[in-house]
């Protein structure tokens, strides 16, 4: 039995921090580690009770170097946090409601206080994208899920549809197949973005089936004959009805940048940064999934965070009121 502890610092809102990090996933935690080692007075604000971001909602991480045996996402997150805190990173668990980024001193509002800093690092990551089909909102948390580790245990010997064709869809299908009797991966084409090794693992699992060339048009869980989803063939538009107990959606992510709209330059919702990871406003950096970039992985987020911390340190050294 596991016992996870995550406790917050006694941070002081009167303090002028060198750096405030918004979002405590791998990018933020790495930046926090580096910044704390540069001796920057650093506060990380994470809205969940536990650091790690999306790392905590995946079971195993297999492509982060240094772990020949797969490492649990939540363990990796916890260890990253412990390491950064060891060097003095302060972490509080509050939700940021407003930011004021212009000016020499930046302000970050949470429901409980206003925090001040010389620099800001945005590492708010991204959130699972919705299908946007009828029935989805009504059954969110009651048959429609975006987190396999959270909700997988509700489907013992049940039938599950997984939507998506990328790494997350394939990885989480293997996890779900531990509980469910049958998992069908539905994807709009037969070309899958998931890593080859994951595709092989899925094909070798007798409980998982692939259903290419279909997309979900309606989540019909109100049907008196039982829960079903309506699928449309992407090649010939024919319809197909599928009986399922639950549906897990892994069709990519949307950046968490709503707070910054109108204040920072965005590209397709993602934050635009230069080679030093700086955003369009002086004193504000971005790292990890929230940045406009090509590959979003733990390994790339960690690199972004370290790099941003380097440039932030240089900026703080020259900062003056």
């Amino acid at each position: 039995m596991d016992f996870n502890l995550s406790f917050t610092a006694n941070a002081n809102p009167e303090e002028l921090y060198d750096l405030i990090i918004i979002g405590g996933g791998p990018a933020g935690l790495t930046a926090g580690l580096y910044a704390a080692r540069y001796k920057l007075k650093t506060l990380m604000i994470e809205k969940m009770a536990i650091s790690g971001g999306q790392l905590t909602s995946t079971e195993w991480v297999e492509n982060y170097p240094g772990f020949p045996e797969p490492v649990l996402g939540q363990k990796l997150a916890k260890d990253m946090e412990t390491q950064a805190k060891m060097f003095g990173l302060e972490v509080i668990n509050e939700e940021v409601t407003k930011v004021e980024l212009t000016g020499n001193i930046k302000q970050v509002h949470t429901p409980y206080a206003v925090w001040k800093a010389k620099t800001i690092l945005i590492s708010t990551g991204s959130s699972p994208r919705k299908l946007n089909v009828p029935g989805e909102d009504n059954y969110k948390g009651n048959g429609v899920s975006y987190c396999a580790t959270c909700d997988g245990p509700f489907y013992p010997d049940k039938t599950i549809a997984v939507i998506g064709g990328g790494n997350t869809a394939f990885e989480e299908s293997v996890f779900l197949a531990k509980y469910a009797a049958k998992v069908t991966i539905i994807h709009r084409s037969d070309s899958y973005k998931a890593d080859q090794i994951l595709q092989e693992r899925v094909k070798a699992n007798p409980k998982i089936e692939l259903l290419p060339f279909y997309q979900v048009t309606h989540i019909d869980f109100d049907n008196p004959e039982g829960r079903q989803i309506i699928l449309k063939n992407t090649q010939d538009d024919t319809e197909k009805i599928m009986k399922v107990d639950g549906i897990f959606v892994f069709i990519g992510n949307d950046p968490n940048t709503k707070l910054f709209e109108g204040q920072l330059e965005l590209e397709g919702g993602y934050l635009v940064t230069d080679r030093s990871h700086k955003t369009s406003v002086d004193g504000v950096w971005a790292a990890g999934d929230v940045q406009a970039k090509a590959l979003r992985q733990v390994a790339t987020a960690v690199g972004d965070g370290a790099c941003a911390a380097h440039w932030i340190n240089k900026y703080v050294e020259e900062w003056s009121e």
Partner: protein
Amino acid sequence: MLDDKIKQEVSKILANMVKPVTLKLFTQGNECGYCKETHELLNELAAINDKLKLEAFDFETHEAEAKKYGVEELPTIVVMDEKDHGIRFTGIPAGYEFSSLLSAFLMVSTGVAKLTNDTKAFLDNLQKPVHLKVFVTPTCPYCPPAVMLAHAMAFHSDKVTAEMIELSEFPHLAVKYGVQGVPRTVINEKWFQEGAAPEDILVAKIKEAL
């Protein structure tokens, strides 16, 4: 139950306790799912800091006590001081919920509930009772904030009671309340809020429910 590393961490966290906290634990022999483990866990915690006072009750032989605290499922933990604030944990607070348990200890011990002034004002003016059931699984990283918020409301207001329910131990409750995703906060048995909602959203939902 707890390894030495976790015990050290717990010891550091509990060093912030001010007043003693009473844990009333209701179990029934070793029959229920995690009665034995929960009892062991609380024994270990009480051994770490003597401000934690554990009182264990057998559900059958202490019927009156169980009734007094409204215990229906086992194990149940009541976290209280000289007064019952309506804070309950039903099922073992393991996994991510271990943080919720320690938070409840600290909140009751220090008397500080983390709520905005708006929420406090709303709670102070409550006319009707509010009962919050927060359904969780131990592997859900999004669940502790929902539990902590509900417990904070219960601590602040005599009108509010709040219960964490670890669903994998009570599948019949998942069926009864139609829960297939966590966290879910059920308000007065009928209304519910999906996910770890910010304070103002939960307050709005409670207003609707009343």
